[in-house]
């Protein structure tokens, strides 16, 4: 009897922990993705053989849900626009959840392939993308990731392309920007050393910073499990006299850092990269703390030329789009342009489309929300200019 009770107790505990894990993201994203599914269903009804099946993969639940949801939403807006405008190329979209986990992401990919996916926009996060990209390479599925920024995603795979900058590119650009505009800064680098994205940018940043003679006064690290308290690192940064903190990380830990720095009255210039994007729309975060934060991102919702996309996004999903949504939006249009250039038709198999698109990708030039004149090299990396923005009054503006 004792054993049974024990078993029952364990089960209850585990079930609750699972609910807690899975439920965290549910609240935030239910509304948005609810819409997505319904509308995707509509597109599905009118779908004939002339439509290309496009899949997106990203964390729709869990702690990185903002990214995955943004990608799914951004792609949806692009698909709706393209379908509404008519034309030879029509898309049908399905978005799958991968909780930013490699194994689940491969499962999501297989699920989409069962559905008949011909083109993949995703996955959203780096670790998951590396796992999926090698599947895509083996099986000749054309993959265009909106936001997975590691070079490992594209390395050695001719049919995998990126819309976002690579990690080294972001790190190098950040260092270059600092060398140019804030050469005297005393920089403290704080990064997450169990995260591929954070570590990748940090490595490139430090290498470039040394080459440019920037003054890095210290480095601090944290892990996923210690991302709730940064007082030690902040004190160290303050003691080292740092006046600039480089934060190559996602917005969630960054929000804690901003909070704690504010609480201890320490106000250096915070400098983030594209993972910082999303901090203003984070639930439960006082956006005024992000005032003066600088970040390197290719997209700003306040720029004139992006207004129609921002408006469409706000109308449909009730929030300002971030860079991930813009990347996904661009990704769909890039696919359209590449498909047109390659002369693909929707009745072609996934592998045939892939073979047709690979040589075309290096020849096209795309003007999108996240950059003008984007071009791709054969190794899959995009070439476009990052722009530094500073957060003022809750919006991104160009620094003076």
């Amino acid at each position, binding site marked *: 009897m004792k*054993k*049974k009770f024990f*078993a*029952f107790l*364990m*089960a*209850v505990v*585990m*079930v609750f*922990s*699972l*609910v807690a*894990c*899975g*439920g965290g*993201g*549910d609240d935030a*994203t239910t509304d948005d*993705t*609810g819409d997505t*599914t319904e509308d995707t269903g509509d597109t599905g009804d009118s779908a004939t053989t002339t439509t290309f099946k496009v899949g997106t993969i990203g964390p*729709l639940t869990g702690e990185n849900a903002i990214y995955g949801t943004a990608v799914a939403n951004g792609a949806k807006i692009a698909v709706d626009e393209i379908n509404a405008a008519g034309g030879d190329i029509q898309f049908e979209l399905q978005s*799958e*959840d991968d909780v930013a*986990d*490699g*194994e*689940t992401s*491969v*499962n*999501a*990919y*297989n*699920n989409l*392939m*069962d559905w008949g996916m011909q083109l993949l926009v995703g996955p959203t996060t780096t*670790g998951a993308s*590396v*796992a999926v*990209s*090698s*599947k895509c390479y083996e099986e000749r599925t054309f993959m265009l990731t909106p936001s997975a920024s590691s070079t*490992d995603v594209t*390395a*050695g795979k001719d049919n995998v392309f990126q819309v976002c900058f690579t990690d080294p590119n972001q790190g190098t650009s950040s260092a270059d920007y600092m060398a140019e505009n804030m050469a005297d800064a005393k920089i403290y680098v704080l*990064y*997450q*050393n*169990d*995260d*591929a994205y*954070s*570590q*990748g940018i940090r*490595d490139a940043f*430090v290498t470039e910073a040394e080459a440019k003679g920037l003054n890095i006064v210290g*480095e601090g*690290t944290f*892990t996923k*499990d210690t991302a709730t308290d940064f007082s030690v690192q902040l004190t160290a940064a303050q003691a080292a006299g740092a006046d600039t903190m480089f934060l190559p990380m996602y917005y969630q830990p960054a929000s804690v850092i901003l909070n704690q720095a504010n609480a201890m009255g320490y106000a250096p210039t915070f400098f983030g990269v594209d993972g910082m994007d999303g901090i203003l729309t984070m639930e439960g975060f006082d956006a005024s703390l992000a005032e003066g934060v600088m970040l390197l991102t290719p997209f700003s919702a306040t720029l004139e030329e992006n207004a129609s996309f921002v408006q469409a996004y706000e109308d449909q999903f009730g929030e300002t789009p971030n860079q991930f949504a813009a990347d996904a939006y661009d990704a769909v249009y890039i696919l359209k342009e590449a498909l047109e250039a390659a002369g693909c038709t929707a009745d072609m198999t996934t592998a045939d489309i892939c073979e047709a698109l690979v040589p075309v990708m290096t020849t096209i030039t795309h003007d999108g929300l996240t950059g003008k004149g984007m071009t791709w090299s054969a190794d899959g990396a995009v070439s476009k200019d990052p722009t530094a923005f500073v957060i003022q009054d809750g919006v991104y503006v160009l620094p003076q």
Partner: protein
Amino acid sequence: MKKLTIKRTTRTDFITYLGVIVAFLIMMFLRDQGVLNRSLTGQLVPICCYISMAISLNLTVGILGELSLGHAGFMSVGAFSGIITAMSLQSTIPYTPLRLAVAMVVGAIFAAIAGIIVGVPVLRLRGDYLAIVTLAFGEIIKDLINCLLVGYDSNGLHMALNLTGSKSITDLNLQPDGIAIIKGAQGATGTTTIASFTAGFVLVMITLVIVLNLVRSRTGRAVMAIRDNRIAAESVGINVTKYKLIAFVTSAALAGAAGALYGLNFSSLQATKFNFNTSILVLVFVVLGGLGNIWGSVIAATVLTILPEALRGFDDYRMLIYAIVLILVMLATNNSQAKALLGRIIPKRKGAETNG
């Protein structure tokens, strides 16, 4: 006539073997016919790994009666040592199945060593210390592998521990022909995926044979005697620590082999994959399948791995439904009426239930 009757436990064991073999053949057949959808095909190897994990954890939790909360730690050790082995032997052993086998054996050995390190001091103690220490072990392994930099070139293996966080893969000074195998937090990326469903099946069969034979042997009876009454076991001269260690290290080694197979099934693997949640996931398989019930673990691991994917139609609610299913299954299997019903259908089971 009496000679022909087989013991009930032996019969159960053979039915378990048979079930796994039949399931394997059916899946192979379906896959070759192209009937099986890709979603399920892609999960075959992870399912085999999780089955193996669940069986091996059942040996610790169900048979030995000690709670282990860091089984994913052993899987992690096995996975990364297996990846290193497989990647560095690429040119030495071009024959993939052999390389996979070697990688899994190495994974098992390293996990066994980790098991001995954890087990020797802790299994001497009474109480729930193993749960606490294995919990810590899982976290330590995760952090250690996050610091680990491993590369391979013509000069052999290069390793470095990035404890200060300031080193990167370039500090290994690899030759131009070298490959980076584990890049700290980025984990193992660019792994050549050599795992196959057949290997998964062989792993499950080996795990079953080892665990079932261990349980039915003299050693297994000693282990269960310790679980049921430690003092009585000691009084008849059973070396408690020795038998506990045998069970625990076997369990760790099997988890290591499963980890190696798992690691070689994905081209990218981070240490954070093997976190506390993964340990608990495996423990859920064991508890739901029934403590000490080997075929129960096999079924629970299979069903609960497929379930979240099968529930994709529910979108964001799938993990919620997954949890509800868990609760319902738990209630159903603990329901005395359901058991009485089962007892009426299979009268012999009634005796078995009261043992538990």
